[in-house]
């Protein structure tokens, strides 16, 4: 794992998510796309670290939601996805899209449930919002994997399971 490149990428994506995309009511969650990318392209321990880090970044820009829920949900589902990838290789674009869709759906629901536990109100249409965001992310995500692989210096021909 190239950690410096990882840090720069997370920072850039977090800023884009908070500024460029924040003003749109329906938008893809680029951080979930990153979560899936690292979970299926790196070793399990790297995937765990990156999942929690991406979750922390999502919490940083998740205001007015409190800190913590996204770190927990991203970390949990990123780790699960990394373990799942040891059994089932997620190589083809439709499977990547499906992985992004399911991860986004689960992280979104769990984040809002955890925030609700701490007393945060939940919007009435939250499930619709999470569903639309997941759908957008799953459409955009697989196309971003190629530039992400280039940035992280991963050779696309060597995609596969790593332990």
């Amino acid at each position: 794992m190239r950690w410096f490149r990882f840090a720069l990428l997370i920072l850039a994506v977090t800023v884009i998510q908070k500024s460029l995309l924040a003003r749109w009511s329906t938008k893809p969650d680029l951080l979930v796309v990153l979560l899936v990318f690292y979970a299926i392209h790196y070793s399990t321990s790297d995937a765990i670290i990156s999942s929690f880090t991406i979750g922390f970044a999502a919490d940083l820009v998740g205001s007015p939601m409190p800190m913590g829920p996204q770190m927990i949900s991203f970390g949990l589902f990123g780790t699960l996805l990394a373990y799942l990838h040891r059994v089932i290789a997620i190589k083809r674009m439709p499977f990547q899209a499906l992985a992004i869709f399911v991860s986004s759906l689960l992280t979104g629901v769990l984040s809002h449930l955890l925030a609700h536990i701490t007393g945060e109100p939940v919007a009435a249409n939250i499930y619709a919002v999470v569903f639309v965001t997941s759908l957008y992310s799953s459409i955009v995500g697989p196309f971003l994997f190629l530039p992400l692989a280039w940035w992280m210096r991963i050779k696309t021909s060597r995609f596969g399971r790593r332990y």
Partner: protein
Amino acid sequence: MLFTWFMLTGFILLFAPQNLTSKFQLAFVHVFRWPLSIGGDLALTAQTQQPLTGSVSRSETQYLNYIANLEKTLAEERQKFEKLSGLYNTYVWEGTDFALADVITANVDGSRSELTIACRKSAGLAEGQFVLGDECIIGRISDVFPQISKAEVVLVTDPTSMIPIEVEGLKNIMKGKGNNTAKIEMVKNEVKVGENVFALKKPGFLDAPMIVGKVSECNRNQKNPSLWDITVVPACDIEQLEDIAVIIMNPQK
């Protein structure tokens, strides 16, 4: 082991007092305010239809852009001056101060609605103060960080927002519902679509009723069909706001 430690950190953050953890969020916005505001401006530009101009040479384009930039700066300064002088000249605002602020980040997604603002003067800012955008109430201050001249605004459409309002003479509470809408529930009479909704006076925070939104839907309450549920949309396009004004009643001189 790694997973356990990270999970533990996550839970510590989750259950730590929110006024403490929100400082992390605001520190991020403060440190990256420049790229964040550029990104926000780009989004605004993308959402605004630009008129096409005729084809001109590159140097001419540069010159025209330079003039346009100067004119824009002048117009903005004039607008700020007029906005302030206009507000101060309204008799109900005598003795009231207005703190102009730039919008750094706007979070208007379907679930939560919040703005982070950079105040040019943070003196007198306090939690609960009303915030104006395009001459209408858009939300209230939820957190102030005077050390870095930043504040957070919870919009009227946020699920945590509850504001006493009046619509067609009926007083009620307007609750934010997310997705850029708010709701007034259990209203006795049917209200026309397009009717103005006003925020009621609140001593120490608002001395005169001000428009907060417009009725977009009026449907019968599902539990009690003799009552009505009103859906309200903000009176201005909050997504397009670049600057706002905070109402400071009885400012300390």
